[in-house]
């Protein structure tokens, strides 16, 4: 095989490959965003441009409340996530805390647990009337008033933080692990005691990661739909995401929703930009050398206090909620109370085989997640390869487009998609394919990041070594890069598949009765008060998720979702 011929062929194909990739990304990313922006300034049901949508959205008193609520909610979640996540990360990475492995594992479990299931569980646990903890409290003390009312801003902040703190934990832990021990040793020998080293060296060096974690937790809460819908609406207040959803109720005010979504988009773009700058700050990388981790700080008797603290957080995030959902899923009837006669697997049979809406939703969700994950992994694998090996000029444009959806909140994206695909020529609304487009767009950045990271471990010399020995680019790619990159592709696939299983905030605006997904069905069954079915679906979702994470960690190596 003359190498020159393949090289020539590749060069000729390059513009076509670029155009195709760019076209796909334009349709997925640029089009819905452009349509969203146009929608926000269009006259509803008419022609021409106007600012009346913004006046309607932000000039009306009842729509202003949710803006304030969202700010309070997101800020409080960010702060609480730091208060929980940063100390736990320090304890796990830097001290002789007992049971570190358990803390890590359960924190991963909290990371992959959707907060709407946490919210459901806490309604079961701490609903003002029938919540298990409140019933128990009343029985023990004889009081009239409930101990907790989860239907409140405080309850919402509390539940959300239990599932956002792992973000702070992961980033802070990574920063603490990456800090070279020399930097702390240098302060010791200069005369600083352990506490002074912590205050002047360790904490300032981890600060960008902690602030970065705060920003991500803040953003997650800001664009979250499920938990607020379940806890805020019964408490008779809205946040911005639930307000956007309300705009879609009959008669739908899509233009006002688009205008209302603009601050979310701007804040997301601004904060992610700030987060990137903060984490990539120049000068925070140091010259090589003894990067070995410092010996663990001995906590002495405090280690048991610390262990108890971590245990409490994880009991509240995982132990109690999982117990509540399991109990609901295994109960014959909600009111029957505690006895072995009340235990059954019937609810699982019911949601999987008998009840049409849930059965259809399970099939839809698995289908959507599989197709989305497969396409995202292949598409982003190709683009990451091309971008990293600099095979095409302009590959960085593709990389930028692939990463852009990171800053587009799901519910905001789906306003654009709704507008784009709810009329000809592409009438996707009413099918699961509009949800597929939403998922694919939303998870492009995850897939791209995973592929990019995996490719960085496959040094270009490995491929070149094969080419020097006579393999052309394609053969070298097949024989060397694919086997090494394969693990990365599977990781990318799983990292898209897992969140696709539980996606709610885009689906909630795009589903119809013919195209429901599991998360949406959980929400609608929750509204109807069908606890047994909600719990059974929730347990199925969590079970599948945790199983996949465990299998992936076993077979893809410890780096998958390792914290």
């Amino acid at each position, binding site marked *: 095989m003359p190498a020159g011929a393949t090289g020539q062929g590749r060069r000729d194909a390059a513009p076509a490959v670029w155009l195709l990739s760019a076209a796909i990304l334009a349709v997925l990313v640029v089009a819905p965003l452009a349509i969203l922006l146009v929608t926000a300034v269009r006259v509803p049901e008419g022609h021409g441009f106007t600012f009346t949508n913004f006046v309607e959205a932000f000039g009306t008193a009842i729509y202003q409340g949710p803006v304030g609520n969202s700010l309070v909610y997101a800020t409080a979640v960010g702060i609480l996530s730091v208060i929980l996540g940063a100390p736990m990360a320090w304890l796990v990475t830097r001290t002789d805390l007992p049971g570190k492995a358990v803390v890590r594992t359960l924190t991963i479990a909290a990371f992959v647990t959707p907060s709407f299931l946490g919210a459901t569980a806490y309604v079961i646990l701490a609903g003002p009337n029938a919540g298990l903890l409140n019933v128990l409290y009343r029985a023990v003390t004889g009081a009239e008033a409930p101990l907790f009312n989860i239907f409140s801003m405080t309850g919402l902040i509390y539940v959300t933080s239990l599932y956002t703190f792992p973000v702070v934990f992961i980033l802070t832990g990574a920063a603490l692990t990456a800090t*070279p021990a*020399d*930097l702390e*040793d*240098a*302060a*010791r*020998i*200069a*005369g*600083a*005691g352990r506490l*002074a080293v912590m205050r*002047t*060296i360790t904490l*300032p*060096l981890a600060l960008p990661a902690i602030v970065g974690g705060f920003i991500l937790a803040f953003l997650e809460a800001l664009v979250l739909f499920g938990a607020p819908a379940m806890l805020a609406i019964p408490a008779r207040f809205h946040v911005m995401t639930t307000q956007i959803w309300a705009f879609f109720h009959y008669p739908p005010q899509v233009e006002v929703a688009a205008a209302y979504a603009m601050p979310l988009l701007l804040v997301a773009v601004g904060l992610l930009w700030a987060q990137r700058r903060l984490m990539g700050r*120049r*000068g*925070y*990388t*140091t*010259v*090589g*050398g*003894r*990067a070995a981790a410092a010996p663990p700080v001995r906590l002495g008797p405090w280690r048991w206090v610390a262990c108890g603290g971590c245990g409490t957080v994880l009991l509240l995030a995982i132990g109690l909620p999982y117990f509540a959902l399991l109990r609901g899923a295994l109960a014959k009837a909600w009111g029957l109370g505690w006895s072995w006669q009340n235990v059954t697997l019937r609810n699982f049979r019911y949601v999987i085989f008998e009840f049409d809406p849930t059965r259809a939703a399970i099939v839809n969700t698995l289908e959507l997640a599989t197709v989305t994950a497969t396409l995202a992994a292949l598409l982003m694998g190709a683009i990451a390869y091309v971008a990293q090996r600099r095979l095409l000029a302009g590959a960085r444009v593709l990389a930028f487009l692939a990463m852009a959806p990171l800053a587009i909140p799901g519910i905001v994206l789906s306003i654009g998609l709704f507008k784009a695909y709810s009329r000809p020529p592409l009438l996707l609304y009413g099918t699961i394919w509009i949800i597929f487009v939403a998922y694919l767009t939303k998870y492009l950045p995850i897939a791209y990041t995973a592929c990019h990271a995996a490719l960085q471990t496959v040094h270009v010399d490995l491929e070149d070594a094969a080419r020097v020995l006579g393999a052309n680019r394609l053969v070298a790619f097949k024989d060397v890069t694919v086997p090494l990159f394969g693990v990365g592709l599977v990781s990318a696939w799983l990292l898209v598949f897992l969140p696709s299983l539980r996606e709610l905030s885009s689906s909630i605006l795009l589903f119809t009765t013919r195209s429901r997904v599991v998360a949406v069905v959980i929400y609608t069954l929750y509204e109807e008060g069908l606890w047994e079915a909600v719990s059974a679906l929730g347990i199925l979702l969590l079970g599948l998720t945790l199983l996949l994470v465990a299998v992936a960690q076993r077979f893809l190596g410890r780096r998958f979702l390792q914290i």
Partner: protein
Amino acid sequence: MAAVRLQALTKRFGEDVAAVRDLTLEIRHGELLSLLGPSGCGKTTTLRLIAGFLAPDAGEIWLGDRRLSSPRETLPPERRGMSMLFQSYAVWPHKTVGENVTYGLKFRTVPRADWPRRLREALALVRLEGFADRYPGELSGGQQQRVALARALVVEPTILLLDEPLSNLDAHLREEMRFEIRRLHEASQITTVYVTHDQAEAMVTSDRIAVMSAGRVEQVGTPTEVYERPATAFVAGFIGRTNLLKGRLGADGRVACEGGLELVTAAGPEHPPGAAVAVSIRPHTVALAPAAGVGTPAAPAADDAWRNIFTGTVTRAAYFGDAMDYQVAITGTDCTLRAAGAPESRLAVGQAVVVRIAPDRCILVR
């Protein structure tokens, strides 16, 4: 006058891995002592024991009449008044150069009013005037290292510890910094322990060198002593190139080497006749001449200094620009010797040569 005494120090990592074994060493007041050895010989562990980052499993460390470390009690590093220069420089990336350098002053009784002067002097010493407000990320590796040096010197430490400080620099800068470190030491007179695996670095910078191997000190001495009078085969082989011949010591300093070569050496009384010994001969002390030139005036045959005279054949010749490197098979034996020659000597492979070695250049080692 000993500044620091290490007494029978042992440090184990894990069950049976001893990084430092029964090590005894004195560091004299005001000297620069190198710990020189290959990687894994325990030199960095020794340094971290002196710094107080590690506690010994056995033995003690004394600073003057003050005990710093023992297995039961170890003074923490921040209370030893020492400074350390790290291999990675460990310049704090979130602090300016000025903040880095003055960091240690706040833990000492230096009035704040003196800080600007101390900072200025320290930066001037390492030739970084005007860099106080920069961040380390804006500096080159060499500049970062000088920041680390200023930070270590500004506190006027009792002991300065240097852990492979030049290993992250490029070759050219490294050579320059050797002299720089020697200059700074002569200016400051601070007792210094310098860890390195680079023998040239140790030779240039040190007053004395402690050559280490497998957790033990093989020999302590001035650069000249360890090079010219190595005590052990390891020292002879580690510092510079050498020919090492095993053999048995006979009468009058004669050594019968394995391979059949018989050498006259200047064996001292410390080597009893009949002992198994090794002979170290530096290549540049092996004189070669074309066989035809025997008896020429340049080589007085009967002179006692030239009693080791052999004939041989050149088996390998390499041109180094400033020297020739030869390998010579000694006739009638299985021995080959390496010899360094002047660049213009140009002996050819296969050429018959006369080999001369002065007895006092045949060093007996353990």
